């Protein structure tokens, strides 16, 4: 990673997308992604992630602002942007009647690869994503994970310098998810591909991204490395479960002395420790002094969900339920 957004990177300035009779799906975001970097774009459903991706991939014109992808302007140099990028959009858009190999052949041909290169590139990518064994099977019979891996292979057909992945692991089992993460990490580390990845999974952003941007209601509310963002929040959470259900209220009153309430399991009580993890011993002593028997006590390091909560006042889980669906480029015309 060279940290430069020019060439193989992404530069976004005051980007806005407004839909007719609707709210601003994207409301003036600024961001910069360096070459070879994996940038995690985190937010709930309807936050503006997919709309941003559609603008950066030239499938949706911005209402205002500017964006350069791979050094090219997304509005005035659309064809050059498209030649530079690969994209796997939100749904794995595949034809159930075609085989994996036929998809590769079509995609490589559309990108103008020569006849011999088409076959070799297709075979190489199917091998790389672990689909060589199913290459001649119709995609309609593929599992969700296989479809996502084929989607990724198709996005890489023309050796793009920048890859957009819009919620690539949504709905996948943990095994398929991990396999995809490994391939994305390898692409960035070994091939120097810049990856712009949207996700609503905290652990995905945490595991994959060099830097994370958190978007909510079309605004970029936080940005930094996962470690920086967590450090900014700083405070760990302590969660305690009383041995007796009847002691829960008393336990909550004791813990309230150490910080504000945080989300916990149904039987437990959690607070964000104002004084940091060194307060843990005091918490135990206070509970002991009140003779509250503890069944379970756990210290949680700050998570990206804590960051999201601190920045938006809501937990990421379920945060998107009150937000409108985003419109897709082709579907919205």
């Amino acid at each position, binding site marked *: 990673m060279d940290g430069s957004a020019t060439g193989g990177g992404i530069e976004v300035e005051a980007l806005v997308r407004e839909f007719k009779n609707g709210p601003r799906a994207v409301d003036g975001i600024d961001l910069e992604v360096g070459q070879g970097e994996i940038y995690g774009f985190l937010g709930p459903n309807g936050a503006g992630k997919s709309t941003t991706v559609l603008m950066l991939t030239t499938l949706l014109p911005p209402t205002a602002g500017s964006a350069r992808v791979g050094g090219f302007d997304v509005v005035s140099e659309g064809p050059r942007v498209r030649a530079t990028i690969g994209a796997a959009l939100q749904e794995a*858009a595949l*034809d159930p*009647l075609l085989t994996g190999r036929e998809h590769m052949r079509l995609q490589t041909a559309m990108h103008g690869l020569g006849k011999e290169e088409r076959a070799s590139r297709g075979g190489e990518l199917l091998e790389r994503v672990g689909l060589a064994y199913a290459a001649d099977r119709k995609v309609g019979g593929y599992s969700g994970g296989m479809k996502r891996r084929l989607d990724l292979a198709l996005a890489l057909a023309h050796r793009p310098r920048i890859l957009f992945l819009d919620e690539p692991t949504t709905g996948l089992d943990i095994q398929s998810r991990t396999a995809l993460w490994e391939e994305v990490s390898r692409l960035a580390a070994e091939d120097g591909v810049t990856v712009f990845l949207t996700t609503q999974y905290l652990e995905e952003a945490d595991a994959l991204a060099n830097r994370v941007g958190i978007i909510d209601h079309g605004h970029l509310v936080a940005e930094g490395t996962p470690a920086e963002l967590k450090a900014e929040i700083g405070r760990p959470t302590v969660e305690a479960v009383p041995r007796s259900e009847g002691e829960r209220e008393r336990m909550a009153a004791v813990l309230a002395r150490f910080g504000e309430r945080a989300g916990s399991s149904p039987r437990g009580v959690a607070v964000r420790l104002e004084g940091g993890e060194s307060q843990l011993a005091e918490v135990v002593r206070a509970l002991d002094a009140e003779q509250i028997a503890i069944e379970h006590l756990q210290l949680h390091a700050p998570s990206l969900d804590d960051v999201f909560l601190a920045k938006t006042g809501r937990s990421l889980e379920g945060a998107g339920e009150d937000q409108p669906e985003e419109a897709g480029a082709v579907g919205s015309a």
Partner: protein
Amino acid sequence: MSGSLRTQVGHLAHRSVLRTLRQPAQIVPAIVFPLFLLAVNSGGLEDATNLPGFPTDSYLTFILAVPFIQGALFSVMNSGTDLARDIETGFLNRLALTPLRGAALLSGLLAGSFVLGVVQAVVYLSVGLIAGAELAAGAAGALVLVVLSVSITVAFGTIGLFAALRFGSGEAVQGLFPVFFVFLFLSAMALPLDLLTTDWFHTIASVNPVTYLLEAIRSLLIEGWNVPDLALGFGIAAAIGTIGMLAASSALKTRLVRT
């Protein structure tokens, strides 16, 4: 046509043909339904040949033109629903991210209609001849009949593409099917135009382009080589195809909002 455009058209056409051949549910009704109506009509309306001025004594030969048009109407539905599905699933977005040219997409998609049109025309003509219909224009006429039928099928296919791009939904495209059948019923489908004595019906049928498509096909079956009728039939197919293609191209520009 440049090399890259030729490659794009070729691959999209290949996909369209594969899709058509891999969906028996598209091919079978498009062949069976018109043949079923052919059997019903030719059996039930045979006495119409006794009307003074009726051009042939075989109602089967007269009505054999109808399946070619009915089959072409299926083309509207098939080409349209295929493209609408591409829009709904995001496959069109995938193609939009490549250096795809609009002309390549539309031409490639019509390849499926072309193949279906050839299969339909050969089956209808073969079944008709086996059942006893005449083909006054002979073997060369059979070839021209297939070419005309395919032209009509592809021309109607462009309307399906336009509908899919305009509305973006397979249901909307399928909703057009009955509308197009009204065009067929309000034409000289069951009787020659001259024998339609009800004024309003005669007026509508005489301005309905489907009438002239039927007459072009009938000219080969009943008369032999009637150049003006054939020219009119090919001309109308070309006009429908051109208008449909222009409308589809315009709708594609709106649909593909890529910068």
